[in-house]
């Protein structure tokens, strides 16, 4: 076959000739095979190291996640839950369904106003509750009169400087208890009127 001639059959003939020439020679020694087996075995150890590294990283991540989870929650503004009835609400009276529920009550005092001593706060809250006895038995009170009183209370609370979130949310809780007794449309308007100043002060 000259340089520029081409014949696959000629190629085949040459290749076969070479194959025959190779016969009888020891082409691959035991030593070469052993070397291949040994070098590959060393490489097989690597995945174990890799798994150890992965396990170490996973452990660090788990510890970090637990630490974040355990971290004390930052005080947040109390939120009113959606008016959609939850399974718990369904167990209450039908009128309860649209009652806003105060959630996420913070335990740490905020900087709304000057923080008074704990006893002062307790006294203030107790006084506010005492001022609302007429709402405890609404059956005995005309609805309109009750409305007026509630609104008066709300008006008064507009100027109140709440000493801390706890006091404000306690008051909101009291309002919520009272509002349960009203029909839904009225309760809604009363809720807005009563809650707005308190929430605004937060």
């Amino acid at each position, binding site marked *: 076959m000259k340089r520029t001639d081409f014949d696959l059959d000629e190629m085949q003939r040459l*290749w076969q000739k070479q194959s025959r020439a190779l016969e009888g020679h020891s082409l*691959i020694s035991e030593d070469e095979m052993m070397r291949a087996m040994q070098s*590959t075995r060393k490489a097989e150890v690597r995945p174990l190291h890799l798994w150890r590294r992965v396990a170490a990283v996973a452990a660090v991540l788990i510890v970090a996640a637990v630490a974040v989870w355990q971290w004390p929650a930052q005080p947040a503004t109390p939120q009113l839950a959606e008016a959609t009835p939850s399974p718990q609400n369904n167990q209450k009276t039908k009128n309860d369904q649209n009652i806003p529920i105060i959630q996420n009550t913070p335990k740490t005092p905020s900087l709304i106003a000057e923080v008074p001593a704990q006893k002062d706060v307790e006294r203030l809250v107790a006084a506010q509750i005492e001022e609302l006895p007429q709402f405890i038995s609404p059956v005995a009170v005309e609805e309109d009169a009750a409305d007026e009183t509630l609104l008066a209370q709300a008006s008064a609370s507009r100027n109140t400087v709440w000493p801390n979130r706890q006091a404000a949310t306690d008051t909101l809780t009291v309002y919520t208890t009272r509002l349960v007794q009203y029909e839904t449309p009225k309760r809604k308007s009363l809720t807005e009127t009563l809650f707005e100043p308190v929430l605004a002060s937060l």
Partner: protein
Amino acid sequence: MNQKTDTTGAAFTAMVKRNEALIYKVCLAFTRQRRDEVQDLKQEVLCNLWRGYEGFRKESKESTWIYKVALNTGLQYYHRNERLPHTEELTPQMAERYVGEEDSRQLDRMYELIHRLDDEEQKLVYLYIDKVSGKEMAEVLGISERNVRIRMFRVKEKLKRMAQYEKD
């Protein structure tokens, strides 16, 4: 080595011994018959064979599997080194030759021509010149026997054109 590895190692060694000519021919083809490169590529092929030996399910002929591994390793080796200059004439000490000098030169020219083909075509030609059956070629390449025939026809035409172009 434990007993299991000993048994596997012995079986592997026996398999390589049965097919050493096949492995060696592929190594010669992808290294331009340079003795040092033949040794390197041979070691790479052996490593790859051993690495894949546990997964070799013996569903196909062992020669089919060895062809697959050896040809792929050879092609990788060739592409890794193809940009290196190979301009110097090989001395008899540097060359790994088992046939006469003229035949050996012709083999070099033949390899040079084959290496201009793309990878799949190269595999096809090496299997063809080694007189591998159409069925086994199809298994090695992962295509149908009919496809092997079609591709072979095209490769022959391509090689003829390449040779003609060089002649002109």
